[in-house]
């Protein structure tokens, strides 16, 4: 496969890519917060934030639309492979730490019975969908966040 044929879409500036990453996670957090508000105010926060979160998550799930080094080995050249492997390793470490602390927290919370635990449907949904969001998007989000500004093709 021709490795130079990938990333056909115009690479996006790093500031825009970072805004997409922030939009995904902040949108998710604000949407979860919005559910706790009263009825008229709830939809003003939940609908736009949920929409932003889903849009940004969609972009992160299709990293080639952002011009980011992400994909299978056959699609990437050596620099892109290095970047992808590095960010995937970082994502693995971060997720490993999160899982370790979550397990520790829930162990203490369940055994002691003093700490907070998700009880109602809303709280369980927040924990479940939050975990899903992080697991699905974190590796690509790290790549999208850390990839340097693109170099535009010259016309020589």
């Amino acid at each position, binding site marked *: 496969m021709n490795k130079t044929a990938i*990333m056909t879409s115009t690479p996006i500036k790093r500031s825009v890519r970072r805004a997409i990453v922030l939009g995904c996670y902040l949108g998710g957090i604000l949407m979860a917060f919005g559910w706790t508000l009263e009825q008229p105010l709830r939809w003003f926060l939940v609908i736009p934030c949920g929409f932003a979160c889903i849009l940004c998550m969609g972009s992160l799930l299709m990293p080639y639309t952002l011009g980011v080094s992400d994909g299978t080995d056959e699609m990437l*050249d050596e*620099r892109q492979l290095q970047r992808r492997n590095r960010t995937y390793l970082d994502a693995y470490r971060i997720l490993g730490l999160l899982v370790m602390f979550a397990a520790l927290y829930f162990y203490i919370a369940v055994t002691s019975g003093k700490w907070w635990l998700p009880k109602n449907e809303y709280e369980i949904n927040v924990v479940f969908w939050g975990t899903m969001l992080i697991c699905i998007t974190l590796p690509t989000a790290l790549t999208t966040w850390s990839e340097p500004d693109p170099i535009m093709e010259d016309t020589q």
Partner: protein
Amino acid sequence: MLYLYNNTFMKTTKRGDESTIKIHNRLPVLRAERGLSRQELADAVGVNFQTIGYLERGDYNPSLELALQLSEFFNLPIEAIFSRSPFKPLSSELYARNTETPRTETPRTETPRTETPRTETPNPQAPRTPEEVQK
């Protein structure tokens, strides 16, 4: 102990493509000389054009394979393209080479002067004006 280990580790290893060692290159000059775009060079060596850009900018150090590919493509030795120390401008290097080469011209020989040396002190008995000369 941990500090020493980390310090040594950071100095001798690469973090992704953020190498601790800066490799300088002449890719922009070579590309411009041949009238190639980044995309054309990238196609020739089988990488993404962004990678060529990052190479030129010094943000990425190539693997040996890529360096050899570029060397073969430009038909130049690797050390003419990549270096650990900054390159001098090609023009100045060429000019310096021309001036450093030994000259083949015949060396100048100093011919003895036949003119009489000028004396600073005037001769008091010598005529000063044309009237005095006529007298």
